């Protein structure tokens, strides 16, 4: 007996083009979120094209033009955002700092997400002592302020960029782990994963083809919210002089070194500070909006 079919949509014609769905997405954003999305795109572009758009090299000295104010503050148009104590162009340094800070943040976030998801899967899959171990580690990570752990590691191991990024990669893994573990347990116990296991699928298949796609949206939201926090963490550590080391420059770095000139040349630290604040704000707002959008449809 033929079951009555639902509205006769023919599937292939249903597909909307990429441009159309992007447009729909943008239209659904409130104004503030739209602005934040724009700013995020701008920041990404700056980071990628730092070499091309910088008028000067970020380490180029010009001892005759030290501590020049920005162009809107009485300075020359040679240096739109002024120069620092060694005559280096603040704007060029800013662009490069953005690149480095974003790079660190991206790699770290990816690392922490990967580690977290793997640990979460392991806990949910093996249960027993493995799960207890993972939960203890999660507890441990969540109970100590990360900055303190980071400082301890930096003290003991010294500081190279690779080490620093690896260290940042441990920030926030416990959130991904918790999410992955919780959702996997639910899927395994009562849901689709249990059914596919019963069909005879191997665990690899279940995790990669079924569970991961299903938890992806929750994970992405969590990652989007962790990303700005990593930026803040890195800036904080660099500000203290313990993060990205010269000659490399990061946003926190600039603020830290510009601090001495707070009274005489505040633009040195104001430009990167403003960047940090606006960027983390934008990404946080985007993440919030994403979460609000995805949550109702999740269940």
């Amino acid at each position, binding site marked *: 007996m033929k079951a009555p079919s639902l509205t006769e949509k023919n599937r292939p014609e249903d597909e909307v083009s990429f441009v159309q769905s992007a447009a729909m997405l943008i239209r659904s954003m409130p104004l503030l979120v739209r602005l934040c999305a724009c700013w995020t795109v701008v920041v990404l572009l700056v980071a990628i094209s730092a070499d091309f758009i910088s008028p000067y090299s970020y380490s180029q000295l010009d001892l005759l033009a030290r501590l020049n104010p920005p162009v809107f503050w009485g300075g020359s148009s040679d240096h739109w955002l002024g120069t620092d104590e060694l005559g280096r162009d603040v704007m060029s340094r800013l662009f490069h700092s953005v690149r480095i800070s974003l790079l660190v943040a991206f790699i770290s976030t990816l690392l922490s997400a990967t580690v977290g998801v793997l640990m979460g899967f392991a806990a949910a899959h093996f249960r027993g002592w493995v799960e207890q171990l993972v939960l203890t580690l999660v*507890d441990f990570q969540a109970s100590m302020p990360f900055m*303190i752990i980071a400082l301890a590691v930096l003290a003991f191991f010294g500081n190279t960029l690779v080490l620093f990024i690896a260290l940042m990669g441990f920030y926030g893994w416990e959130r991904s782990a918790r999410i992955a573990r919780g959702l996997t347990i639910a899927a395994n116990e009562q849901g689709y994963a249990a059914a596919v296991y019963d069909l005879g699928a191997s665990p690899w298949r279940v995790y990669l083809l079924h569970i991961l796609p299903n938890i992806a949206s929750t994970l992405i939201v969590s990652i989007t919210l962790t990303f700005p926090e990593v930026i803040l963490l890195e800036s904080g550590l660099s500000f203290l002089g313990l993060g990205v080391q010269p000659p490399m420059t990061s946003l926190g770095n600039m603020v830290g070194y510009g601090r001495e000139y707070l009274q005489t040349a505040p633009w040195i630290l104001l430009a990167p500070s403003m960047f940090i604040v606006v960027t983390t704000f934008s990404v946080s707002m985007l993440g919030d909006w994403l979460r609000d959008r995805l949550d109702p449809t999740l269940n």
Partner: protein
Amino acid sequence: MMRFLLIRFFRGLLTLFLVLSFAFLILRSTGDPAMLIMSADAPPEALEAFRKGWGLDAPLWQQYVGYFKNLANGHFGYSMRDKSPAMDLVLARIPATLTLALPAFALKLLIGISAGVYAALHRNTWIDRLLISISIAGYTMPSFVLGLVLVLVFAVGLGWLPSGGDATWQHAILPVITLSLGGAAVLARFTRSAMLEVMGQPYIRTASAKGLVWHRVVLHHAMPNAAIPTLTVIGFMIGSLIAGAVVVESVFSWPGVGRLLVTSVANRDLAVVQSLLLLVATTMVTANLVVDILYGWIDPRVRTGQAGQGKTV
């Protein structure tokens, strides 16, 4: 309830144990601990005594045990810069940090909770929206930026307050404000959503339908229930207070524990760092335990053992 507390207590001990083991492992992998912990030109007898005390010629697990024995006996090592016992240095700085941390904590609670409750009660008005935006700005702004901006405005620009050091009580104003605002923003947001969730519950409508005056409903029914999830956040806040102190003390050149940590890390003064780690870990564990106790006291479900039975998911 007792069972719950005991579990938590042992978990706390476990965390402490893990932190110390972590420190041990790292110390061992960076070179001769005796040389590192004590200064390079300490008298050879002292170095030898330290090594013996640590049993550095013994197998690793014996050293591990010895390490803990040393800690239990109060041998925390010597600062490389100061040549004085590391733990004493640390303890000496605690009052300075508390001078900032305690008022900041109180301020956080005050501002955060009242703002959150107010926003919840006046949902979707312009005040609510303003508060939400401010709170988002609050936690996305790093404390060092906030501190520097405040210094720029109030110290450099207006000249009302000093910019650094700890000479008078006025020196404490800006640091305390900087320290409290970030956490207050998070707390406000959280309190708001906790309150909103509670206010939507049927028992609140029942309470006001019974004829209770509105502010009684809020004070006696809504807020205590909203306090339960808020408590967990407060536990986190203590952690972020410590982390925040590190940055704020550096911005304002305040001679507290946080500043000591930064300088010790920069100088790789490992004994001091280790002692600080221990201090922070103990504080966190104690704070979490207190939060758990309060939790159990406020939430009757925990007391009767129905919540937190250890059931996963």
